[in-house]
């Protein structure tokens, strides 16, 4: 099924008697639990609807390629500030995918530390619910509290609630330049403490990561004079091993954003684990199995590679773990998304029913229950 426009999509959904695997450009099929249903192909919903740089607003078809959006924004010195990642190599796809899938999976890169994720930048969408009704939510304005916040609910719903036809995003100016300060590796506990220390200064780092054997990376962005002043500030506070100039800094953060440090070991599963930074080093120390990892978001995000069936969640005190890369069989039998408390799981089912009562969209992609 490949609808031409929103009306066509609405009719198709209304007429449907069996579920669909919702897909835009097909780059997120390996993310989440496997869906065995024929595709609902939304790739026709592409193209820019409106781009108003002075209003900080972009509206485009949900299946517009992320790289096309970025090209357009770059020409005006603007960006999607949440730094949408390109998981092509770990999810075995050809490219980063569409802006709609970026939203549906609520993706975010290293700058989440400072500006949040896709959910913090979505302003509105048009889409079709599971009853074939066209729903518009949000608007081309950056501040809006009229009614329930449907756009943010859609972020991270993995296409299980509605199918988007178009999306509206807030965009922001690209920083004039960037540099990255490197602290020598002194182990993970020290690294987490150092990142917390930096976050308590006025250095305003836009990203903070730790890669074992390499050290702590701290990105400083802004106008040249400001970047220099803040690096000087860090110099006074701690021993900097090295300062990477803009070109190397950009390359480094792109690699960290896209999980390149763990991409090669194909036989390993990759987990994306978010927890309070203060619990991260204890969690890692408790793992009784061989693993490879690095930290982002000042220690709140752990990217972890381990052999299948490692039982990662058993060692967490709090937080959310997602099985991000695994073969289809593993994704079918493991809880890919973090299990919910029973009351929350029941509420999630009711929310699903509020949008897609006949369970047409991406059945069981997130949880077995729906």
């Amino acid at each position, binding site marked *: 099924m490949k609808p031409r426009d929103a009306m066509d999509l609405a009719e198709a959904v209304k007429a449907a008697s069996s579920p669909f695997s919702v897909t835009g450009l097909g780059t997120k099929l390996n993310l989440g639990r496997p869906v065995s249903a024929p595709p609902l192909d939304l790739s026709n919903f592409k193209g820019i609807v409106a781009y108003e740089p*002075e209003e900080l607003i972009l509206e485009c078809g949900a299946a517009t390629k992320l790289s096309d959006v970025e090209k357009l924004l770059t020409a005006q010195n603007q960006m999607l500030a949440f730094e949408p990642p390109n998981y092509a190599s770990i999810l075995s796809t050809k490219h980063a995918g569409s802006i709609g899938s970026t939203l549906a999976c609520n993706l975010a890169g290293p700058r989440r530390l400072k500006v949040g994720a896709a959910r913090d930048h979505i302003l509105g969408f048009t889409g079709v*619910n599971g009853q074939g*009704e066209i729903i518009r939510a949000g608007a081309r304005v950056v501040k809006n509290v009229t*009614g329930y916040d449907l756009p943010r*609910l859609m972020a991270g719903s993995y296409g299980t609630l509605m199918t988007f036809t178009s999306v509206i995003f807030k965009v922001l100016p690209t920083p004039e330049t960037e540099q990255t300060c490197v602290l020598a590796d002194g182990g993970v506990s020290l690294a987490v403490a150092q990142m917390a220390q930096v976050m308590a200064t006025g250095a305003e780092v836009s990203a903070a990561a730790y890669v074992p054997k390499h050290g702590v990376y701290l990105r400083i962005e802004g106008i040249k004079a400001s970047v220099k002043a803040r690096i000087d500030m860090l110099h006074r506070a701690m021993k900097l091993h090295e300062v990477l100039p803009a070109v190397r800094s950009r390359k480094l953060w792109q690699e960290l954003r896209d999980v390149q440090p763990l991409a090669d070991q194909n036989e390993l599963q990759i987990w994306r684990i978010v927890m309070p*930074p203060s619990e991260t080093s204890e969690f890692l120390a408790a793992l009784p199995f061989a693993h490879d990892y690095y930290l982002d*978001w000042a220690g*709140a995000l752990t990217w972890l590679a381990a052999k299948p069936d490692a039982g990662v969640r058993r060692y967490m005190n709090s*937080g959310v773990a997602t099985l991000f890369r695994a073969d289809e069989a593993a994704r079918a039998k493991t809880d890919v998304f973090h299990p919910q408390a029973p009351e929350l799981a029941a509420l999630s089912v009711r929310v699903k029913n*509020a949008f897609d009562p006949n369970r047409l969209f991406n059945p069981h992609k997130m949880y077995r229950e729906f």
Partner: protein
Amino acid sequence: MLRMPEPDHSVLARRAEIVTAMRRIVPHASVIESATQMRPYESDGLTAYKQLPMLVVLPETTAQVSAILQYAQAHNIKIVPRGAGTSLSGGALPLEDGILLGLAKFNRVLDIDFTNRCVVAQPGVTNLAITKAVEHNGFYYAPDPSSQIACTIGGNVAENSGGVHCLKYGLTTNNILGIEMVLMTGEVLRLGGKFCEQAGYDLLAVMTGSEGLLGVVTEVTVRIIKKAETARAALIGFPSNESAGQCVADIISAGIIPGGMEMMDKPAIHAAEAFVHAGYPLNVEALLIVELDGPQVEVDHLLARVGKIAAANKSKTLRVSNSEAERTLFWAGRKAAFPAVGRISPDYICMDGTIPRKKLPEVLKGMAKLSKKHRLAVANVFHAGDGNLHPLILFDANKEGELARAEEFGADILRLCVKVGGVLTGEHGVGVEKRDLMETMFNPIEIEQQLRIKCAFDPKNLLNPGKVYPTLHACAEQGRMMVRGGALPHPDLPRF
């Protein structure tokens, strides 16, 4: 006059029994039943509407909230949650047959965690108290609604409150990490935590700004951030609203995102200056306050660029703050704009539409026309950076018909905002104030979809009914209900 759901007389008849039941859950004095003592709760910040509740209950633990809601659910009693009662849209307006659930006793900061840069607070803690709890280490909680000395963090979650710094630092929804909440069934849920993700759907986002219709928040975890090294403000006068508006667009086009960017029109400038004596220029048509924050060198550099952009837009006056005291003074006029207008007019109502910024001249012109039509004056303050307008409509409630005219004027302004591509409310919420305008922004199918979310959380429609949505909704056929050809599925359901 505003219509609310019909009171349930069978509930009112059981009032004494309900009071006894509540006193089994909370201490005797935490149930308020006399009309005199309930009087302070009869309205919130939207004082045009008043209603005494059936009774007021003031729980202080999550277990008590859970027990109260469980009882109310079993006995079909409506609940209206209330924080500090500062809502400007009537979100905490009581119901005649409902329990007003006051959360003021939830007033403790539970955990200050600098390592994870967050604070865990009970919902009755004020917005400013969170900043006060962490400022000794140079941290603060970013959203700063004008009512921040009084409004509570629980109320901020319910309304998704903003403030003058949200263009750069976001609204409540961008600054909270987790909540504990209680459903009408009494079930206690935790969403998020001291980290920025949730298991499953982003229900934290749905709860934020849900105006007390979905659940009662009993604990909030907020993100705190390090205060910028410096903040300086520029006060810039313009010969016209258009030139000020163009200056705002040019600043943003130049890649500058100020910490705050506020605009005032002539009536607002004069009212504020007479009240606060901030040194605002009186010979200009529009005034911008542009605040830059960050490292000193960056602030100085960007202020120079803002000055050039302003000059290119024919600015008539420019003053840059040279001390913290001067910066605070610049803001004092703007922050006191509402009471300042209160001095020049016996009454006023404050509207809250958001528009695409470029539509500002059109909307201001339209507003001037409407001002003539309704024979009432209007002053405008405007979060210019994010397009959020606060027209203040001046009237005298003691004059026959003026309140009705002011409300009609306000409704016309909001219709105009929607017509130019904007929305009914940027930060004050829909409440009862804009409830009956929801259909100017959403079609019946879209409203129906939102009501189905309500059904997922509160199928018996007992939490804050009559707010936000102009119709109630039968949840029995949840999800299976169809709206065909724009017709409402239940024409028999009460409309307010």
